[in-house]
Each structure stands twice: as C-alpha cells, then as structure tokens.
C-alpha cells in the first residue's frame, strides 16, 4: 500500500539544513494498522505529511498504491488525497465557520459528488461516530472528543483506503482518547489501512505493528534486543 525507500527530507533555511528524514524505509501493507512512535522532533509528522502527499520529499522513492509519487503533479496529488486518503489531525482541524454536516461534506464536494449521495454518506459517517444528532452544531459547541469524532467522520465519509492520523488523541483526555482509539480499531477491522503517529505507548500497543523513528530513521525495535543479546554472548 505504502512503500518508502531511502526517503530523505531536508528542510533548508538560509542558516541551516535540517534532515527531518534520512534513509527512511517503511513498508505498510494493505489492511495493516501501524503505530509510529518516537521522540519529539524525530520526524514522525514529516513522515506522515509526505505519506499523505501534503509535502514533497527531497530524495529516495515513495510508492503509494503502486504509483510513484514523485511523478504526480499538484492536481493529481489533490485528487489522490481526496479519494484515497483520510486525515485525522491532532488539532482536529475542523472548519470553524461550518457546522458539523458541512464540515464532513467538504471532501465530498471536492470529489464532485451528487448532493443525495453526499447527504447519505455524511449521515452514515456521523452515525458511525455517534454524532448524527449534532449535525447542525458548530465545532465550537462540541467537546474535544466530539470534534475529533467529527474529524474522523470527515475522514471516513469518502471511504479512503488509507487513514493517516497524527497524534489523534494528543489533545484529548484518557477517556475520550479511548473512545477515539476504539473507533479507529473498528474502522481498521472493516478493512482500512491505518498509520497512526502516537506518543501514547498504551495506544501504540493496540496497533498490529509499531514503527519506531529516531533522528529521521526507522529503527527496528524487535531486532535490537537480539543484537544486544548476541553481543553479550560474545
């Protein structure tokens, strides 16, 4: 589904070059639920923005669903974001001027979907996150947990194959976080591929697989202890 080989991302300013990602390799299979962990500033968000085609990369290769991403122009990237990818952000990122219904509708309108189908999908998605009764509410009238569930509904409404979540529970208390996590697990069971960046080890443990990022590189946590035990034998 998502394969990165020797991917590099350099942020250049006048003064410094920051290697946010270097020789970054990852392979996420269709239907997997991967949690990405790592210290702050290690490059997790950078990985997710590149994976979600929000940003370009500096070197290496990235294949998404069989397509070579570096070959896509801006409009093609927009279309893929719209049709194949659902985003869930730490800061919810609902549009404050639009009510819940209109917020969930945003990606569907960019897809040029007919009004009847849009309405059906919006109400289905809101039903799933348990907020159908709040369709006419504005984001400011909802709790953080409810807002994040609206954001999930917005990501789900377009039935994306890939769901990318950047610390989706980072701004929520434990109970709300648990609710969001259960929702993600349910979505995963229904077949979506999920890549979730998280700080929370408890949440990470509930994913099928953990990927640890340090200093812009994926580190294999499963092999490391073996490596250590071998050296201790020697």
């Amino acid at each position, binding site marked *: 589904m998502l394969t990165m080989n020797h991917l590099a991302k350099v942020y250049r300013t006048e003064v410094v070059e920051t290697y946010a990602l270097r020789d970054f390799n990852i392979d996420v299979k269709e239907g997997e639920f991967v949690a990405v962990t790592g210290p702050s500033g290690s490059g997790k968000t950078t990985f*997710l923005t590149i994976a979600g085609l*929000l*940003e370009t990369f500096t070197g290496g290769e990235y294949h998404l669903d069989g397509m070579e991403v570096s070959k896509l122009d801006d409009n093609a990237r927009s*279309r893929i974001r719209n049709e194949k990818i659902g985003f869930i952000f730490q800061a919810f*990122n609902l549009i404050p001027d639009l009510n819940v219904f209109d917020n969930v509708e945003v990606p569907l309108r960019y897809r040029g979907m007919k009004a009847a189908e849009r309405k059906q999908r919006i109400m289905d998605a809101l039903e799933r996150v348990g907020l159908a009764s709040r369709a006419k509410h504005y984001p400011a009238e909802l709790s953080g947990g409810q807002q994040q569930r609206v954001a999930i509904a917005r990501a789900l409404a*377009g039935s994306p194959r890939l769901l990318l979540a*950047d610390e989706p529970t980072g701004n929520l208390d434990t109970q709300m976080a648990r609710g969001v996590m259960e929702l993600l697990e349910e979505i995963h069971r229904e077949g979506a591929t999920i890549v979730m960046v998280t700080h929370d080890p408890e949440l990470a443990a509930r994913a099928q697989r953990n990927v640890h990022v340090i200093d812009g590189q994926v580190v294999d946590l499963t092999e490391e202890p073996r490596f250590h035990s071998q050296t201790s034998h020697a």
Partner: protein
Amino acid sequence: MPMDILPILASLRRHKVTAILLILEIALTCAIVCNAVFLIGLRLDRIHTPSGVADNELIMVRMSNIGGRSDVRARTLEDLAALRGIPGVRSAAILAQTPFGYSGTTSSIKLSSDQKLPTISYVSTYFGEGVVNAFGLELVQGRDFSADEYHWLQDLNLGLPGSSPRSVIVTEAVAKRLFPDGNALGKDVYIYDEPSRVIGIVRHLVTSQEWVPGQEDYSMILPMRVSPDAGMGGTYVMRTSPDQRDRVLDAAVAKLKGLDPRRVLTQKSTLEKQRATFFSADRATAGWLIATCAALLVVTALGIVGLGSFWVAQRRRQIGVRRALGARRVDILRYFQTENFLLATFGIVLGMGMAYGISLFLVLQYELPRLPAHYLPMGAVLLWLLGQGAVLSPALRAASVPPVVATRG
C-alpha cells in the same frame, strides 16, 4: 456549478458584520457611481454639442467705436474688404451673433399670422450677411440667401417698410419641430408680421446663448446686414486654417486699427476658446464627478483587497485543511472569487435600489433627468469586475497556501 455557493454563504453568515460592511460599501459605490457616470455623460454630451460651425477655423474680432460715425455702412464694407485681403483668410463677415456667446437674440415662429401661441419659441436668431459661408454650415436642403434678399438690420429695427425678411434658413431641428410630418422647405412661416419663406435648411447651428436641454439646435438665420453700430453691434468673423488663427487675429486687429485708430478692441478670440469658456463650468463639474468616482472605486477596491487579505490570513489554516482534504489550487482560488462575487452581487442589488433613490432625489430636487435604466446593469458589471480584480491577489495568495499547513499550522 463551478463552486458550490451554499457552504460559502453558510461561512459568510458567521462573519455577518464584516460582510455587511463590505456589502454596504459596494452598494454605496454602485449607487453613487451609476448616478455620477450618468451626470458625467450629460456634461460630456453638452461639452461635445455639435455646433454646426467650423469650430477650429473661426476667429473673431470685435471693435467698439468711440463717438458716432456717419458713413458706417460704407466703412464696414471697407473693413471687410481689408480683412479678406489678409493672407490665409478664407472668408470674412460681420455678424451680430456667434455660437457659444453669452448673449443673443431669440424669436418665436408661428405657422399662420393669426396663431395665438407660437409653434416654437426662443429660436436663436443669427443676423449678418453670409452667415452660412462664414460659419462653414452644412446646407442639407435648399440654398443660401442671394444678395438681393438682404436688408439692413437697422432698417428693420426702425420699422422701415419693406425691411422685414422674406426668407429664412432654419436648422433641421427647427424644421422638424415646425413641420413634423412634412418638408419645411418652401413653406411660409411668421416671424415678423409678413411671412418669411424657408429657403434653406442647415444640418446644425448651435444657439448663440445658453439653451434648454434638447434645444441646442433651435436656431435660424435671417437675411439682415449688420454694421458695428446697429443696435447689438457686430463681430468680424473670419475663417482660416487652424494653425494660422493666431497670426491672422493679430493681422486683423492691426488692419482694423490701421483703417481707424480711434476704435477700441473689445474682443479678440478664437471660436475654440469661446467654446471652451462657455463649457468651463461643465468641464469642472465633470472633472469633479470623475475624481469622486475614481476615489470611491479605489477606496472600495482597497476595501476588498484589505478584507480579502485579512480573511486569507485568518483562514490560512482552513485553506491548508481544505487542500489536505483534496481541494486543488484552483478550487481555493474559485472559493475566494465566488465569495467576492456573492458579496458584490448583494452590494449591487442593494446599490441599484439606492441608485434609484439618489436619482429620484436629484430629479425632485434639481430637476435633473432621471437615471436611465441601462446605467444599472453597467454599474453592476463595473463593480463585479472591480471586485474580481481586487480579490484576485488575495485569492492567488490563498491558492498558494500549501496543504502542509494543515499539520504544521
């Protein structure tokens, strides 16, 4: 539909005060500009009133005699002969009235001697031998006066028998007004007690003094000879080529002074200058109205740019989110263009009502003509274009917000 309007309206409803202020600004601009453009048009129409005469070729010299003179008629013919001798002079005549002057003579015309109310009143009347040639008028029907048709104006004023004009040349406007359904040529009309026959019709001849709107061409010419001391006096009118006017003017004054040094020069001017002076108030008013319109349009455009920029900055995050959710650059561009179009449309609709109100006020208060309806769609198009032009730069800035803003803020 290129961009869905409902969510834009929904979003605007959350910024009511700002949106309403901008709508009011657009409405006021639309209303004032519609009326101002109409008023400017009226002034410009006036300024460009066709005179019928050779505006750029005519020069005028007026002298006033000190003390009476006995042989004034003979002296006048001598003056004219001398003026015709100046190189570059194509024609010279002495006329009692000139176009765009501040004074003139008006007469009324009846179609029969026993008619109580005249068919047409206040027709500007030109006296002088050779008016058609001197002014360079375009004769569309009939002929010019022949030499034996002329009488001395002074004799007419004294009521001498046989001195009243038996022929007249009128403008097309006068002919049409006198005989709306037929040809005026050859018909008898009554200006004095005895009938005068219409022997010629000229295309245009502007009145010699201020006119009632729509009657700028209400003029006629009577076959009367003029001399400097004949009641209203006389102006020497010469025709020359435009680039020789100043030189010929100087030469003419010198010639006339040479023939009789006791004369005092009271006017020395080109018709072009006289025309410009006549319309100077109109030009000033038009200029002031144009400046007002320009200022209003600039202020409104700046308002749109300012508010647009503010909204783009304020919505930077949500633009990034929209991009992340699949909006193309062009979708973002269209969002702001559509939003502006909607605001402008509300403003224009309101502005049309206000324009009508302002017009009504001007009609009642200043007896100005009513704003013609076609100025409203014109104003609408102008403000739509202004809005789209002004919002383009903020909208392009919005379209260039990268999608990564959604994660990085």
